[in-house]
């Protein structure tokens, strides 16, 4: 199999097609537009349909309908567009409908800017809309991973009957890297014995999330929570990079995760025992990564493109047993590896040679 050069957004679109996604509903917005553009060009050739909806709210509700009928379906947008979709996403969670949602995060609040950012971490990992629910949130850090995780997102959505969010940024979406176009793995997924695709010859089914009796509503909440607990146990993912013997840890995902790898390599050249935990699932947050590596750790720095959001999950994961600091850039700016290493040296009082 040979590699092809693809933009991150195109890698997402290609992976969706190869995962059997037949329907895409969306409304274009920079920096996610290449997804709908690529699919509009190629999905019809593969027997699917792309529909540019009149707005984001319509698009997410079209996804509701398609998923309820049993189709593999995706939508994509960027931050302000994802905010508009939140009501629909909440309904997807309540009705346990498998939809893949892509957020190519742009800066906020408000209309914001187009640069790379991770300012939607809270919105993504805490549910986002109203009600007590969670999305499975995947955080790729390069084009190949955008491809692989998009493909897998459809299986995770079907396996747990839950919406899955892919969270990336404009830098990852626009950058071109070689991608190996792997074929779909034939997974062992549960039959969709709930889909509403016509009841001729079988009992009627209903997909709804309205409870007039509190006892029934609580029962539903408990069922959802049991599912989320199961996901928390089974699906935490992360990459450990020089973490086994580390005395200090960086924690970063997506674009920051890959920048942090360069920081770690530079630190190691100077004899500093720095390692990295790169969360791949943001929800469930990879708490287990911290229990398995924890003994020799003296301090942690999270590297984020926001005012400090993931740092809360890191502090919870380590029970505040060691100092956890934040290195951040905002507004679409990216940190350089040198400034991160300098910061690590400053907060932990470690010597850092100038041009690391």
């Amino acid at each position: 199999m040979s590699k092809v050069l693809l933009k991150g957004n195109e890698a997402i679109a290609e992976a969706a097609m190869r995962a059997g996604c037949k329907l895409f509903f969306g409304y274009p917005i920079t920096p996610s537009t290449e997804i709908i553009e690529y699919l509009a060009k190629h999905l019809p050739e593969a027997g699917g349909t792309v529909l540019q909806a009149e707005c984001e709210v319509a698009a997410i509700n079209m996804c509701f309908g398609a998923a309820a009928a049993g189709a593999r379906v995706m939508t994509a947008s960027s931050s302000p567009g994802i905010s508009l979709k939140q009501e629909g996403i909440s309904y997807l969670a309540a009705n346990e409908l498998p939809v893949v949602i892509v957020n190519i995060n742009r800066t906020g609040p408000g209309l914001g800017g187009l640069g790379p950012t991770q300012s939607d971490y809270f919105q993504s990992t805490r549910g986002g809309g109203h009600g007590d629910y969670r999305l499975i949130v995947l955080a790729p850090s390069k084009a190949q991973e955008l491809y692989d995780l998009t493909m897998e997102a459809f299986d995770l959505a079907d396996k747990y009957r839950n919406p899955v969010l892919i969270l990336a940024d404009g830098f990852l979406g626009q950058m071109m890297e070689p991608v190996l176009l792997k074929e779909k793995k034939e997974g062992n997924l549960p039959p969709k014995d709930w889909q509403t695709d016509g009841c001729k010859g079988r009992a009627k089914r209903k997909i709804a999330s309205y409870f007039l009796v509190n006892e029934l509503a609580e029962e539903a909440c408990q069922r959802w929570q049991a599912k989320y607990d199961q996901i928390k146990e089974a699906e935490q993912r992360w990459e450990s990079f020089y973490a086994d013997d580390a005395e200090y840890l960086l924690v970063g995902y997506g674009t920051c995760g890959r920048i942090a790898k360069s920081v770690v390599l530079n630190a190691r050249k100077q004899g500093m025992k720095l390692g990295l935990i790169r969360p791949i699932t943001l929800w469930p947050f990879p708490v287990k990564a911290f229990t398995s590596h924890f003994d020799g750790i003296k301090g942690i720095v999270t590297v984020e493109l926001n005012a400090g959001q993931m740092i809360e999950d890191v502090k919870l994961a380590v029970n505040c047993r060691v100092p956890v600091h934040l290195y951040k850039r905002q507004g679409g700016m990216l940190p350089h590896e040198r400034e991160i290493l300098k910061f690590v040296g400053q907060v932990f009082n470690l010597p850092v040679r100038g041009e690391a």
Partner: protein
Amino acid sequence: MMDKVLLAGFGGQGVMFIGKILAYAAMLGSLEVCWIPSYGPEMRGGTANCSVILSDEEIHSPVIDQADAGIVLNKPSFDKFLTRIRPGGVLVVNSSIIEMDKTRDDIEIIAIPAGDIAHEIGNPSLANMVCLGALLPKLKLVSLDKIEKALDEVVGKKKPELYEWNLTAIKKGLES
């Protein structure tokens, strides 16, 4: 080994195309590569730029602070990127339309009248490829044969005549 290359010019001068050729050359040579466009409102202004990182090992940070090499096709790009080349690096300057009112003595500056050379070849839009030719000997990881393969992949199949034009321009740049 790594080559971090900055490419800049007016929209329409084929900056993204140089980047694409470099990226394909690297990929067809089984190297790692990142092609990073500047995106957003900047693209509608005076300069278009992209950067390419070529490497024989996995590329982690794609953030280029100081580049090893660069090509600037117009004056605004020269002004903006002269300071972004690392000491010891190299900058190819399209001297046909760039008046070099400043310089640096800690980098190698290759001033080449790429616009004029392209005009002599008979296609003014090939200044970008002339500059790529001039830069080639300075790159650690790609050589002419890989660039030829990349050209064939990107334009050769659809427009064979463009392949010849581009290759001629690259060779002119290499010779000068």
